[in-house]
């Protein structure tokens, strides 16, 4: 069909038509789609090839554009153009499997006293395609970032189980940690009376499940009092106060944790078949804290206070908490302790030791 033909132009407007034709004649080969539309009856006065390609002519009604511009709200266009010189919008046109996105700018133009609309259509499909791809890609990246964050938090949680937060931060920032010496840290050692026999006699699954249950409660108690669980070895539980950062009330807090652990066991035993009775030793002194190992690292503590706590724990009677003289000095203002005399402690010679009975205000 001849794109320059302008069907339906009334007599007396041939001058306008020919002017339009000559303008659009130049525009025939452009990639931009151009059409001159009469808003009075929505007829197309002239159009170029690109416009026809995007909005194919309905052979039954060659002049009317409403059918051709399906999807475009023409009344809105007319309304906007009544108050503004131009109006821009985007629309999608389909040809078979392919979509094209057009950015359409419509302007009022005067031709011989008549107001017509000039529609300029730019193909912005590639731009749209890029936007869609970016959206798709950013959604993928956001999803991956969320998963990574979740993984990171899981790893952090695992690492915080085996080392104090400040050591973890040091490891994260510097890739390595330095062993530190703490001159007045308190160490708690706990183990269960007759555990080996229990493990052999009872169903091992049940014993381990119960032990796990108890240690989980201990972890909560230790955390409540601002202390740090260092490790468990079989049925032994090791916690520490005053490292990696001394906080002042450390030994008192550790003593409170020990009493809470004992009370927890008493309550638990009254409601369960198997009785779990613990011996506890607490010692105050020098401790070295360090991350040990390269591939399989673990935060561990060494030093005299650690050994002494182990000795005191061995020395304890079932369900008793035995403390050294230095610990006693730090807690006696707030706790009831009992002097149990001077004893031979292997590796430490003769030492004055005490039993932690309870808190001062409410005795056991």
């Amino acid at each position, binding site marked *: 069909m001849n794109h320059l033909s302008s069907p339906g132009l009334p007599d007396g407007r041939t001058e306008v038509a020919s002017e339009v034709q000559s303008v659009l004649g130049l525009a025939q080969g452009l990639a931009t789609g151009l059409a001159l539309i009469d808003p009075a009856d929505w007829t197309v006065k002239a159009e170029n090839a690109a416009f026809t390609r995007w909005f194919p002519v309905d052979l039954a009604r060659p002049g009317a554009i409403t059918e051709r511009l399906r999807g475009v709200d023409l009344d809105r266009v007319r309304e906007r153009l009544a108050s503004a010189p131009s109006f821009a919008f985007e629309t*999608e046109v389909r040809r*078979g*499997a*392919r*979509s094209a*996105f057009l950015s359409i700018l419509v302007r009022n133009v005067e031709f011989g006293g008549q107001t017509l609309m000039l529609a300029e259509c730019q193909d912005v499909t*590639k731009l*749209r*395609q*890029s936007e*869609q*791809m*970016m*959206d*798709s*890609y950013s959604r*993928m*990246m956001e999803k*991956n970032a969320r998963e990574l964050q979740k993984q990171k938090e899981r790893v952090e949680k695992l690492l915080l189980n085996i080392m104090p937060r400040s050591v973890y931060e040091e490891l994260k920032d510097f890739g390595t940690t330095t062993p530190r010496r703490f001159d007045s840290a308190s160490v708690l050692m706990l183990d269960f009376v007759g555990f080996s026999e229990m493990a052999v006699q009872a169903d091992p699954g049940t014993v381990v499940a119960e032990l796990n249950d108890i240690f989980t409660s201990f972890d909560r108690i230790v955390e409540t009092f601002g202390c740090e669980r260092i490790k468990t070895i079989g049925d032994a539980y090791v916690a520490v106060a005053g490292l990696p950062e001394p906080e002042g009330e450390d030994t008192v807090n550790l003593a409170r944790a020990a009493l809470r652990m004992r009370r927890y066991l008493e309550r638990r035993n009254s409601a369960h078949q198997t009785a779990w009775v613990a011996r506890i030793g607490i010692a105050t002194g020098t401790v070295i804290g360090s991350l040990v190992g390269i591939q399989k690292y673990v935060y561990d503590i060494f030093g005299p206070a650690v050994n002494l706590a182990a000795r005191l724990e061995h020395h304890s009677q079932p369900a008793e908490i035995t403390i050294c003289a230095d610990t006693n000095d730090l807690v006696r203002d707030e706790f009831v302790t009992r002097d149990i005399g001077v004893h031979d402690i292997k590796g430490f010679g003769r030492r004055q030791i005490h039993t932690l009975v309870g808190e001062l205000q409410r005795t056991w």
Partner: protein
Amino acid sequence: MSHTIFERAGGFASVRRIVSAFYDRVLESEMLQGYFVNTDFATLIDHQTKFIASMMGGPASFPDEVIRRAHLGLGITPREFREMADILKDTLLDHGVVPSDAEQVHAEVLKREPLVVARAA
């Protein structure tokens, strides 16, 4: 050396052009264009981006089950499937992806033939 073909190809900056060219070529293919007549533009671009990124080992997951469900009941023939795989390979080569990488992506795509091609009744 980068770990994935996606990275070696230049990351998303390059893959964006590959997806765009692949989209054009698939829709130009007389054998394939019929399948996309009623497909939403945004959905198609989204799938092609994820599909190509995942075939290149990029940051996308495109599980086999999703591929299978997307092609269910379309009646795609082995010839059409290969045509698509070949178009992708050519597109990769035309965008500077080294032949060994393009071959590997092609092989990855071909592995998924049972998920896409309709089983003979």
